[in-house]
């Protein structure tokens, strides 16, 4: 986090620079089944972030050494397109994307019924086309819709959502300025039905009380985004089955 004091992030009326209330999310739009070649896919626009996710599989896991005898592995790549950020990103995996790929795959393995597909792999490809703070969360939201679209059995969806702190104030769903100049960011992957946490990172500075408020905001937002996920899947199901 860039730290407090550099830039004013809250207006005199208590609202945020883009007019949102402290516990107000950016707009989220989701569409399922956007990539014809994939077994499942999703497109998520969250604020100005855009993520697309494709799922291939389950299929035989190879090379052999990645196989697990008792379950499927999630072979996941989180990738930012070169033009997705203000400064162009050189193509190819970097340390940040490798770490996010690892913990995102582990979060999804926590909900996918991987035991049903021993020795298999499920390929999950997350492409960030436009980035404006919170892309790892948007990627998680997209991936769980794409998995569902692929018909992969899961015990719950996962919703990616973040809260944080700006000007000593806890806010939901940091945008780019708030991320750059804020004091803390707490991205989570939440199972909306059970409120379990499958993905958790945090950096910055939070007291225990502030942390608890962040968690509360995240739980609330997770349920809202979950509705949008389910709407997308419903529309997809209907269009597949001759609906609208």
């Amino acid at each position, binding site marked *: 986090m860039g730290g407090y004091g550099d830039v004013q992030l809250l207006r005199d009326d208590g609202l945020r620079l883009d007019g949102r209330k402290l516990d107000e999310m950016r707009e989220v739009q989701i569409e399922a089944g956007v*990539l*014809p*070649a*994939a077994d499942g896919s999703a497109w998520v626009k969250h604020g*100005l972030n*855009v993520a*697309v*996710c*494709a799922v*291939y599989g389950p299929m035989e896991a190879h090379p052999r050494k990645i196989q697990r005898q008792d379950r499927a592995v999630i072979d996941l*790549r989180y*990738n930012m*397109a*070169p*033009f*997705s*950020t*203000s*400064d*162009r990103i050189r*193509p*190819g*995996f970097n340390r940040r994307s490798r770490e996010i790929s690892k913990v995102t795959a582990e979060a999804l393995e926590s909900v996918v019924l991987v035991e049903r597909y021993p020795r298999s792999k499920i*390929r999950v*490809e997350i*492409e960030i*086309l*436009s*980035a*404006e703070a919170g892309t790892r969360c948007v990627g998680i939201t997209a991936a769980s819709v794409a998995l569902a679209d692929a018909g992969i059995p899961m015990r719950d969806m996962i919703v990616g959502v973040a809260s944080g702190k700006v000007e000593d104030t806890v806010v939901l769903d940091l945008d780019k300025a708030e991320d750059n100049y804020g004091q803390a960011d707490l991205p989570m992957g939440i199972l909306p039905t059970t409120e379990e946490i499958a993905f958790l990172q945090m950096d910055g500075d939070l007291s225990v009380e502030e942390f608890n408020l962040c968690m509360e905001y995240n739980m609330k937002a997770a349920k809202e985004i979950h509705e949008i996920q389910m709407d997308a899947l419903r529309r997809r199901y209907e269009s597949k089955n001759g609906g609208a």
Partner: protein
Amino acid sequence: MVEIVSNLLRQELANLAAADKRIDGRGRWESRDILLETDCLYNAEGSAKVTWGDTIVYAGVKFEVRAPWPDRPTQGSLMCGAELRPVAALKYEAGPPSPESIELGRVVDRGIRESGCIDMDSLCIIPGEKVLGVMIDIHVLSDQGNVFDASALAAIAALKTAIVPAERFDIGEDYPLQVQKTPTMCTFTRVGGRYVIDANVEEETGGEERVHITLAEEGHLHSLQKGLKGTLTPAEFAEILEVAQNRCAELAELVKSKEA
């Protein structure tokens, strides 16, 4: 396994070709539907999304300020690269750029570069010190056939709608990039023995060599490339070049329809 399917497919394509038919019912010089959207990516200075049948390609343009090459002190630079991301099809794997990705990027790059559509001297900021670098990145999200033409179309459309972020670089007010020509690509694939345009994924699987032709204003040739196993005769080339003339002109019109 793959080979057996592909031999059966090859046979079917040959039978169809003999009856002057294509596997999806199109005519020999008939393209799938093309949807071209521009200005669709928030952080790119120019962007385009091409939905070409079930093939989906994004292109994004970014700028950077850099020092010129010592031997060309007043010229900016152009770079075009492509990634056949694993998202685009089961067959694409993660890892360093494949020969296929490299070829795609370089063939699109040459078509744009050699058309001279960007005056490199117009990218000079301070001679010998600062010039603009223009970077086009092609991101293939779904490969269901003919990614070359889709990529070339996305690239030139992104370029033609790009805004130079001059304010961010402290070199004046933002302005549209000057792009003087409209190179577009038409790819011919030998399917069942004869050439067709805009092969779909089955035609590519069961087809043979392909020829990528990039033309710009006045039907001038700016880039050619033959790919894959197979040969063609000069007479065959003359025939497809004529088809390309019409086709590229249509695609150029589509690009121009998106310009301000």
